[in-house]
C-alpha cells in the first residue's frame, strides 16, 4: 500500500506524546508549587508572630514593641457583617427573580449577563465608586461606605448561586405546594428557598470569602483607624488594610504583625472555602459564573 505509515513517523509522534505528558505534569506541579510556597511560608512566619496580644491589643506606635490588631479584626467583622446584611438579601432576591420569575426571558438573560460582567469589575473601581457616592457627600470616610463597596461585590456571586441552587429544587415540589392553594410568594419562601437553603448558604459563604480579603475597596472608604470602632460613620480599621499598611512599612515589628494578620485572614478564608467545597463539592471560582 502506498501510504502505510513509516516507523520513523511513529517514533517522532510517540516522542511528542511523551513531551506533552511531561509538560502537562510539569505545569501542574508549577501551579501547585506557589500555593505551598505561600502557605508554608505564611504559616511559618504567622505562627511565629501570633500571640494573645495580637487578638486583644490595639496597635502601638512605631518603636513600641508588642501591640495587636484587635481593632482591625473587630473592624473587619463589622464591615463584613454590614456588607453581608446589605448584599445577601439583594443577591438572593435577584436570584429568586431569575429562577422563579425570569425564566428564559430577555430581561433575565440581560441581568445574568450584567451580574457576570459586574463580577469582573476590579475591586478598586468599587472603592472609588463608593468613595464618590458616599464618602464625598458625607465628607468623611466610614465603615458604612466600606460595607456598601463590599456588598456590591457580593451581589453577583450570591445572585448566580441562588439561581443555580433554586434550579436544583424539583418542580414537583413547587407544583405540590401551588396545587394546595398556597400562594406563589409563600411557596417560594417556604418551599423553594427552604429546600435550596444549604446551597444558598454556601453560596453566601463563598461570596463572603471572596470579599473578606479585599483591600482595594477599603482604601478610600474604611481608610483605617488606630482605635476601636465606635460608629459606622467613622473611619474604621480593617484586617486586610492593616496588613497592607504594615507590609509596606519599613519596620520589622510591623512586618511581624503583617504576617500574623495575613495568617488569621487566610485561615478565616480557607475555613469557609473548604467548608463550601466539602458541603457542596463546588469550587471557589464556579460561584460567580
Amino acid at each position: 500500500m502506498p501510504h502505510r505509515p513509516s516507523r520513523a513517523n511513529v517514533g517522532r509522534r510517540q516522542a511528542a506524546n511523551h513531551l506533552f505528558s511531561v509538560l502537562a505534569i510539569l505545569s501542574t506541579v508549577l501551579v501547585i508549587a506557589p500555593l505551598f510556597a505561600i502557605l508554608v511560608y505564611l504559616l511559618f512566619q504567622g505562627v511565629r508572630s501570633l500571640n494573645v496580644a495580637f487578638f486583644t491589643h490595639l496597635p502601638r506606635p512605631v518603636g513600641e514593641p508588642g501591640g495587636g490588631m484587635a481593632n482591625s479584626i473587630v473592624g473587619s467583622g463589622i464591615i463584613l457583617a454590614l456588607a453581608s446584611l446589605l448584599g445577601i438579601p439583594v443577591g438572593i432576591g435577584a436570584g429568586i427573580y431569575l429562577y422563579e420569575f425570569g425564566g428564559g426571558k430577555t430581561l433575565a438573560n440581560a441581568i445574568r449577563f450584567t451580574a457576570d460582567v459586574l463580577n469582573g469589575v476590579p475591586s478598586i473601581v468599587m472603592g472609588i465608586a463608593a468613595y464618590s457616592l458616599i464618602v464625598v457627600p458625607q465628607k468623611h470616610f466610614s465603615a458604612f461606605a466600606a460595607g456598601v463597596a463590599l456588598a456590591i461585590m457580593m451581589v453577583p456571586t450570591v445572585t448566580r448561586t441562588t439561581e443555580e441552587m433554586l434550579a436544583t429544587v424539583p418542580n414537583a415540589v413547587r407544583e405540590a405546594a401551588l396545587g394546595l392553594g398556597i400562594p406563589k410568594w409563600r411557596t417560594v419562601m417556604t418551599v423553594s428557598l427552604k429546600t435550596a437553603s444549604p446551597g444558598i448558604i454556601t453560596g453566601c459563604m463563598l461570596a463572603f470569602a471572596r470579599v473578606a480579603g479585599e483591600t482595594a475597596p477599603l482604601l478610600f472608604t474604611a481608610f483605617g483607624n488606630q482605635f476601636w470602632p465606635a460608629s459606622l460613620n467613622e473611619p474604621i480599621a480593617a484586617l486586610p488594610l492593616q496588613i497592607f499598611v504594615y507590609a509596606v512599612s519599613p519596620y520589622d515589628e510591623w512586618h511581624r504583625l503583617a504576617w500574623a494578620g495575613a495568617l488569621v485572614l487566610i485561615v478565616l478564608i480557607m475555613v469557609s472555602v473548604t467548608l463550601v467545597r466539602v458541603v457542596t463539592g463546588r469550587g471557589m471560582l464556579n460561584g460567580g459564573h
Partner: protein
Amino acid sequence: MGVGIEVEDLNAWYGQTHTLKGINLQIPANSATALIGPSGCGKSTFVRCLNRMHETNPVARAEGTVRVGNVDIYKDASPVEVRRRIGMVFERPNPFPTMSIYDNVASGLKLNGFRNKRVLDEVVERSLRQAALWDEVKDHLKSKSGASLSGGQQQRLCIARAIAVDPEVLLMDEPASALDPVSTAKIEDLIFQLKDEYTIVIVTHNMQQAARVAEKTGFFLSGHLVEFDSTHKIFTNPSDKRTEDYITGRFG
C-alpha cells in the same frame, strides 16, 4: 485488502461489571459480519475491544487474544498502531467541526505524516468517492465544515475519514441508528460496496439491517456470544433457542 480476525477467550470489564465473558470467534476477511443482540448485551464492548478503544475508558479493561491478520493486537502492537490499521465509525456521526470536509478526510493521513498535497488530494477524492459522498461535496471541499453536512452525509464523511488511512478492518458501531431511513439505506449500500475491500464488523440492533448486509451474524446475550453462523442460518434456522426467541421478537 482486509484481513481476518481471530478472537480467543476475550473477557472485558467495566469497573466491577463483567461485560464480555469468554468470547471465541473467527471473522472472515473481506466480508461483512453483523453483531446483534439486545442493548447491554456486550456487542458494542466487543467491537471496541477489536481496536482497543475499550481501554480508553479509565475503568475498563480487557483480557484475551485478538489476532488481526497475524498480529496479536494486545501483545505485539501499540494501541496507536492498532487503531490506524482498524478503522472505526461510531453511532453518532462525529466529524471534526473545526475542520473543512477535505481536512476531515485527510486528518488521519496528516497524523501519519503525509504532507504531499498530490497524494492527499488523490486519497481524499478516492475516499469520498468510495463513501458515495464525492458528488455531493466536491464543490465545497475546503470551504464547508464537516459539521455543516446533514446527519447522513456526516456519517458518510466519517466513513470516508476512516477508510482514507487504508485500514484492514472497518468497525461500525450502530452506524445508522441515529439516521433517517433514506440515509440508512445509503449507508447499507455503502457497506455492501466496501466489503469487497475491507473486513467489516457492524454492530446493529436492527435485525433487517444485519440480514441485508452481512454474510455472517453473531448473536450476543448478557456478555456471551450465543451463536455465530452464516446470516442465513441465524435468521432461518438458529441452533439456539435464545437466538430464535430474539429474532422472532419473543425476547425483551
